[in-house]
C-alpha cells in the first residue's frame, strides 16, 4: 500500500512574479456607495438637481432672515408692489414681502415632502420587511391588505381625511396633511421592499454566504441592506415631490396650511388672483420654485436610479 508517493522537488518550478499577479484582481475593488457616488457625479443633470436641493434647503432655513421682513408682517400701504430693490420678489395683496414668504413657504413644502417620505420609508420598510420575512400565508394576507389600501383613490382619501381632521379642532396643521398623504402612499414602498427582501433571501450569493458560515445578521448587513437601499432611495426621491405636489393641490382646494403660514402651494394659490390684473409675478414666482423643487428631485431620482443600476456598471 505504501505507494511511491515520493514527491520530487523537480516537480515544482519556481513561480515567477508575473504569475503571482495573475491571481490578483487588477482593478482596485470599488466599494458600492463610493461607486454609486462616482457615477452620480458624472450625471450633470442629477448633480444640478442635487445642488439645487441643497441650495433650497439652505435658503429655506436662512432665506427668511435675509431682507429684514417677517413672513406675516403686513404693510397695507405697499400692496402689490412689483419686484424692486427693496422687495426682491415684490409684495402680495396684503403688502407682505414675497421673498421672505417664498422661503418660508419653501421651508414648509420641503418639510412636508421630506417628512412624508420619511414616514413612507419607515412604514414601508417595516411592513414590507415583515411581509418578506414572514411565512407565505402571512405574507399573502399582508399583501392583500396593502393592495386594498392602495386601491383607495389617493387624492380622494387625502381630501376626506384632511377635512375630517382639520375641522376637528386645530385647523389644517401640517401634521394632518402629512398623515393624510402617507396613509395610502406607503404601499408602493412596502411592496418594493418586500419584493427585494424575497428576492435577496433566495438569492445565490446570500445562500453562498450562509453556507460559508456567515451569520444571518452579517448577510443582512452586507447583502440585503445595501442592495435594497438603492431602490428605496430612488423611491424616496420621487415621494418627496409627489407629497409637495399633493400639498399644492390641496391648497388650491382651500385645504392647505392655515394662514398666515404658507407653503409654496398656498402662495401660488393666493397668487392666482393677481394674474388677471397684471400681477403675474405673484403666481409665477412661487410656481417657478415649486417647479424647481419638482425638477430637482425628479432628475436626482432618475440619476440615482441610473447610478444604482448594476447593469450600467462599467
Amino acid at each position, binding site marked *: 500500500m505504501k505507494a511511491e508517493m515520493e514527491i520530487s522537488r523537480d516537480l515544482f518550478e519556481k513561480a515567477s512574479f508575473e504569475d503571482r499577479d495573475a491571481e490578483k484582481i487588477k482593478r482596485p475593488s470599488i466599494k458600492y456607495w463610493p461607486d454609486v457616488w462616482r457615477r452620480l457625479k458624472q450625471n450633470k443633470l442629477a448633480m444640478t438637481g442635487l445642488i439645487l436641493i441643497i441650495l433650497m434647503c439652505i435658503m429655506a432655513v436662512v432665506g427668511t432672515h435675509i431682507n429684514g421682513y417677517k413672513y406675516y*408682517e403686513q404693510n397695507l400701504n405697499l*400692496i402689490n408692489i412689483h419686484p424692486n430693490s427693496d422687495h426682491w420678489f415684490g409684495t402680495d395683496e*396684503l403688502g407682505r414681502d414675497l421673498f421672505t414668504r417664498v422661503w418660508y413657504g419653501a421651508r414648509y413644502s420641503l418639510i412636508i415632502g421630506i417628512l412624508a417620505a420619511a414616514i413612507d420609508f419607515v412604514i414601508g420598510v417595516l411592513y414590507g420587511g415583515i411581509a418578506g420575512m414572514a411565512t407565505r400565508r402571512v405574507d399573502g394576507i399582508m399583501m392583500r391588505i396593502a393592495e386594498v389600501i392602495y386601491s383607495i383613490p389617493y387624492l380622494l382619501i387625502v381630501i376626506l381625511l384632511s377635512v375630517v381632521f382639520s*375641522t376637528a379642532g386645530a385647523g389644517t396643521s401640517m401634521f394632518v396633511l402629512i398623515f393624510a398623504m402617507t396613509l395610502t402612499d406607503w404601499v408602493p414602498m412596502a411592496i418594493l421592499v418586500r419584493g427585494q427582501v424575497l428576492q435577496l433571501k433566495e438569492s445565490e450569493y446570500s445562500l453562498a454566504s450562509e453556507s460559508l458560515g456567515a451569520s444571518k445578521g452579517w448577510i443582512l448587513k452586507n447583502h440585503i441592506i445595501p442592495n435594497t437601499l438603492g431602490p428605496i432611495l430612488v423611491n424616496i426621491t420621487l415621494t418627496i415631490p409627489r407629497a409637495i405636489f399633493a400639498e399644492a393641490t390641496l391648497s388650491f382646494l*382651500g385645504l392647505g396650511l392655515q*394662514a*398666515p403660514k404658507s407653503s409654496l402651494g398656498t402662495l401660488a394659490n393666493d397668487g392666482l388672483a393677481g394674474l388677471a390684473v397684471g400681477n403675474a409675478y405673484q403666481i409665477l414666482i412661487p410656481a417657478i420654485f415649486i417647479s424647481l423643487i419638482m425638477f430637482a428631485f425628479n432628475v436626482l431620482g432618475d440619476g440615482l436610479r441610473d447610478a444604482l443600476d448594476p447593469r450600467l456598471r462599467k
Partner: protein
Amino acid sequence: MKKKLSLLLSILLIAAILVTGCSKSPDDPAITQDPDTPDTEETSSGTKILRTNNGSEPGSLDPALAQGTHESWVLDHTFEGLMKLDKNAKLVEGMAKEYKVSDDSLTYTFTLRDDIKWSNGDPVTAEDFEFSWKRALDPELASDYAHQLYYIKGGEAYNTGEGSVDDVAVKALDEKTLEVTLEAPTAYFLELTAFYTLYPVNKKVVEANPDWAKDAKTHVSNGPFTLTEWEHDASIKIRKNSNYYDAASVKLDGVDFTIIDDENTTWQGYEGGEYDLLLPLPQAVVAQMKANDNPELVIGGEVATYYYNLNSKVKPFNNPKIRKALSMTIDRQTIVDKITQGGQIAAEGVVSFGMKDENGKEYRDGVGQLITYNVEEGKKLFEEGLKEEGMTAADFSNFSILYNTSEAHKKIAQAVQEMWRTNLGIEIQLENVDFQVKLDREKAGDYHISRAGWIGDYMDPMTFVELWLSSSSFNDAKYNNPEYDKLVLTARSTADQKVRFDAMREAEKMVMEDMPIIPLYFYTQPFAQKPYVTGVYKPLVNYPKLTYADINK
C-alpha cells in the same frame, strides 16, 4: 403579436367610444347644446339675448325651495309676486292690481290683475297664492325660507308643527281676491310679497306633477321670462314669456346663464367677450377697474353688513371692555381701501346704509357714527379688561378667528390678526372651515371669534336689529340684554313709525355700546357690464334686475 396589438387597440377604441358614446344620448348636454351655438350669431342679427353667469347650480327652481342668490336670480326673472320692483326700482303692484290695508295694519286684501296668465296659459288665481304660501310653510316640504311667511297669522305654528294648515290666515276670497291677516303690524310686508319665497306656483301643475320644477319642459312660471333650458351645472336659458301681461316693457328676448363658479375663469370670459354682464368679480379685478375708472364697472348697492361674532360665553369675550378694545383697534378704513377695494363702506354700526327712516330720510343719518378707531383708547380698555378678567395678552394665542374657506375672508382675517398683533400685542390664531362646519360650530357656541355677514331680507333696519334678540336663532354671539329685547319688541309691535324708529335707533346704539359683534364694513355688489347694455339696475336686496335691460349693439 401584430394581431394582438391591433386587438388591444380596438379594445381601447371600443372602450373610448362606449364611454364617450353613451354621453350622446338625445337629452345629453353634449349634443343638445350644439344646435344652440349659433345663439351668439342670432344676437348680432336681431335677437337680444343677454349672456351672463350664475355662480353655482341652483338646488331647485321651485320658489318655495330656493335658498340663495344662485336660485333667486333666475326665479326673480321667471316669477312675479303680488308686488314687484319697477323700472326705477320702486315697489309697485305686480300680480296684484290693487291692495287694501285694514286700519289696524293687520289685514291685507289684494285684488289680482285680470290679464295675468301662467306660461302654460292657465290664469293666475288667488287660489294659486293661497296654495303656494301654505305649501311653503308645510313642514313636510322643509323649505329653507319658510320663516319669511311667519308674519302671517298661524304661519309659524304650522311650520313648526304646532298648528294646523287651516289656521294659516291666508285665504282666496274668490278667484281674484286674496286676504291675508298678519300676526303683528309689519311695515315691510308689502315688500316681502316681492320676495321669492312668496312667489306663486301653479296649483294645477304642482299637484299633477310634484317634479314639475326639475325640468325646463315641465317648468311653469308667471314672470317676464320662462325657463326653456336647464342643463345641470352647465347652463340655464330663459326666454321672453309671451303670456306676461307687461311683455311690452321687456326688451330682451332672453337671458343665457352659464354655471361656472370660478370667478377668475368667468372674468377671463367677460374680457374675452363671452358675457354681457358679470358678477361676482374677483376682488383684484374690481380694485383695478376702480383705479382705472373703468366705465364697465358698476358698484351696486347692497344692504348687508360684514361682522365678527364674539362669543360672549367664552372668557374674556364676556367682558365689554375687551370687546370694545378689539373693535377700536381695527382700522376699518384701511380694510375697505386696501383689501376689499370694491367701494365698501367702513361700518358705522350694524345697520347698513340704504334704509329709510320715518321721514323718508337715510336711517343712518339719524343714528350717526357708532364706531371709532382709536388705538390709544383701545389699549387702555384692553389693559383694564385683562385685569378684570385676570388674563394676559399671551392668553390670546389660544383663541382663533373662525372663517369659512374663501380667499376674501382669509385676507380680511389676516389683516385683522395683524392689526391686533401690532396694536394690542396679541397673537390670535386663524382657522378656516367649510361653511357647513362654521354654521354648526356657531350654533353650538364652539368658537371664539367668527366671521359672519348678514344680507338684509327686506328694506327696514329691523332686518338687522332683530338679529341680536336673546331669542333670535341668528344670535350666534349669544348676546343677552333684556333692555335690548324690550326695545326690539316695542319696535315690532307698534304701528307708530316714530316710536318704532326711535326704539330701533336706541337699540342699535345699545348693541354698539356692548359690542357683542364687531361690524367691519357694509357690503357692495360690484358687477361689470358691457357699454351696450342698458336698463340694468341693482335692487339693494338682490342681484341686478335684468327684466328691463336692453342690448344696443
